[in-house]
């Protein structure tokens, strides 16, 4: 046993590799070459990063025989090169006594990956405390009826020894207050999971009025600090975004809908493509320092005395005005003309209240 281990670290070709090659004749040779080229890049990373990746990769590939390299790399959040390097690394992994059966049986054929069921790595390890805590923090920021259950389930999925650290860590991330009432969120979650239509009572900010709509809810997503429901509105014949804090009521319908396909989703945006010019705003020196730190703000240029011109891509005229006014007199909307007029109007009307 000890002998085998000793040889393993020796110069290639080691007896181990010979055994491997005969055991898995389909393995392609170029794998190793690709790995070597990438070795310098990989060595810069924490070795634990690779371990975490492969502990997911192995069971995932077992469960999805013949998964394309590209897709597996996407799932693992790495490049194809890195993935090939990982696979190469895995060929070396075994356990004493390092007999052929003590190694992972994996090969790449064409651009597809095959891994035989492995006795030790058939499922990924439990959540680490930071994995579970990050997910729990995200869940608490969204809210919803199942929030307590979900967080408890996450906690139970952390190794027993690490649950105290999980509790500690959850208290150290606060990702925002829930954007909608529990009941509204709970129903939306159920509708998304079951692909059921919902009837919404929705407050439209631009028209300052409530309306009823039937929506096929696809997903929830966050942008610039706000949560949105993204779904298809059959009456309008298009996908739209609805701000969660403007949904007053939500009722589940019986109607089921077909999910959007990938191509549709790839085209999808939370907001329709910015129509025309983005509102631009001139910031004085006091406002510039803070305003630039806000999400969604693009610096166009610096101007005299530490001021700046910025753009708010995709923002409505109303949003641009609110944004400028919130900077306490040190900012004004300058273009395009409709946004400017909106700002001027708001300033005059608001000032009239103080006279």
């Amino acid at each position, binding site marked *: *046993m*000890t002998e085998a281990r000793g040889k393993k670290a020796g110069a290639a070709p080691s007896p181990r590799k010979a055994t491997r090659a005969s055991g898995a004749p389909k393995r392609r040779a170029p794998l190793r070459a690709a790995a070597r080229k990438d070795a310098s890049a990989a060595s810069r990373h924490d*070795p*634990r990063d*690779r*371990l*975490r990746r492969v502990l*997911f990769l192995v069971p*995932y590939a077992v469960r999805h025989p013949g998964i394309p390299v590209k897709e597996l790399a996407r799932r693992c959040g790495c490049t194809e090169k890195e993935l090939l390097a990982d696979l190469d690394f895995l060929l070396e992994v*075994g*356990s004493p*006594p390092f007999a052929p059966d003590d190694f992972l049986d994996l090969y790449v054929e064409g651009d597809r990956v095959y891994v035989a069921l492995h006795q030790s790595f058939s499922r*990924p*390890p*439990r*959540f*680490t405390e*930071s994995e579970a805590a*990050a*997910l729990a923090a*995200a*869940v608490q920021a969204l809210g*919803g009826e*199942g929030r307590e259950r*979900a967080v408890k*389930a996450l906690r*139970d*999925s952390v*190794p027993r*020894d690490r649950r105290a650290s999980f509790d500690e860590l959850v208290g*150290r*991330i606060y*990702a*925002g207050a829930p954007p909608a009432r529990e009941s509204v969120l*709970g129903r939306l*979650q*159920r509708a*998304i999971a079951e692909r059921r239509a919902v009837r919404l009572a929705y*407050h439209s*900010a631009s028209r300052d009025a409530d309306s009823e709509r039937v929506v096929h809810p696809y*997903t929830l997503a966050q*942008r610039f*600090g706000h949560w949105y429901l993204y779904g298809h509105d059959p009456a309008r014949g298009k996908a739209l975004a609805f701000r969660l804090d403007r949904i007053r009521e939500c009722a589940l319908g019986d109607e089921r809908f077909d999910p959007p396909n990938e191509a549709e*989703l790839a085209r*999808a945006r*939370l907001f329709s493509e910015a129509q025309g010019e983005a509102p631009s705003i001139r910031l004085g020196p006091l406002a510039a*320092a*803070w305003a*630039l*730190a*806000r*999400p*969604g703000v693009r610096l166009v240029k610096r101007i005299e005395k530490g001021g700046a011109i910025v753009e708010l891509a995709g923002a409505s005229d109303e949003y641009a005005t609110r944004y400028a*006014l*919130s900077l306490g007199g040190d900012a*004004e909307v300058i273009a395009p003309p409709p946004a400017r007029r909106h700002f001027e109007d708001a*300033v005059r009307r*608001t000032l*009239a209240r*103080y006279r």
Partner: protein
Amino acid sequence: MQKDQRLLDLAAFLLKAAEPVSWREIQEQFPEDYGGRGEAAIRKFERDKADLLELGIPVRYDAGDEDLPAGYLIDRDEFYLPDLKLPPEDLALLYLAGSAALASGTFPYARDLAHALNKLSFAARAPGASEAAGLAARQLSAPEDGDGVDVGARVEELSRAIAHVKRVHLVYLGAERGAPTERDVDPYGLFQRGGAWFLAGWCHLRRAIRTFHLSRIVSLTVNASAPRTADFAPRPDFSLAALATRETWEYDVHAPVRCRIRLDPPVPAEVVASFGPRARLAEDGGVTLVEVDATNEEGLLRHVLALGDRAELLQPKGLREKARAVLAGLERGLA
């Protein structure tokens, strides 16, 4: 042998073992790594054990009894990710919340979050629609340009410092001061507000709890010495949620001042809600009167101005006058 390979081999070995494995046997199986008699080999093994635990792999020592020998083992039940046994809507919540957080580009422990979402597909029976919706959320809200990359790295660094309880040194550009200041901070936590991230912690310069806007941190160094030893103990009275849910007019700038705001109909629920849970509300013929106690009037002024002509500051007089002056100044600039 490379460390990553050693760790994985060790995990595979212990997972496969039918009974606890003695230290001597481990040494025999890994002679190059843990060979020798010295303390050094044991310390190396202990470090590897700690690394494995950080990966979610708990190696424990069993003292043994009449049936089993003493030694190291990995409990399979403690190792493998269990089924979460959640109803589909709770799974939808996990996928949606996690995906959106990841897509925002800046979230504490973002890499861990990505791993967690991957693992989730194993921990749930037939996630199906939820998983698809989660992926969709990620696609929808992913930042289209490079914005926030820098803040993302800051969040990542600070996340580590918080988890390992390590002190950080900041160069910070405050709001009012033109010049950056340097300080040591015990990082207590990270919170998000209006889409931006803040660090909360004990500031050694001000000798008080302070919050720092991450985009205003010019540079950041984490104390690199003794990485596994905590640098501080957070103050027991600290509450991140209390700090994070402070409204801007509740920042500690001056003594509390009672302020009144008038909101004219129609008053959208989100506008009323924007005054926070501590606001006192009264209705009067469709008009909503809001009363808050401000310790930072300037913050309230800005909030009310942003609401446009549907909101009006009534009291105190001085603040109302200030609102008028700001608007008059803006109006003069319109010409």
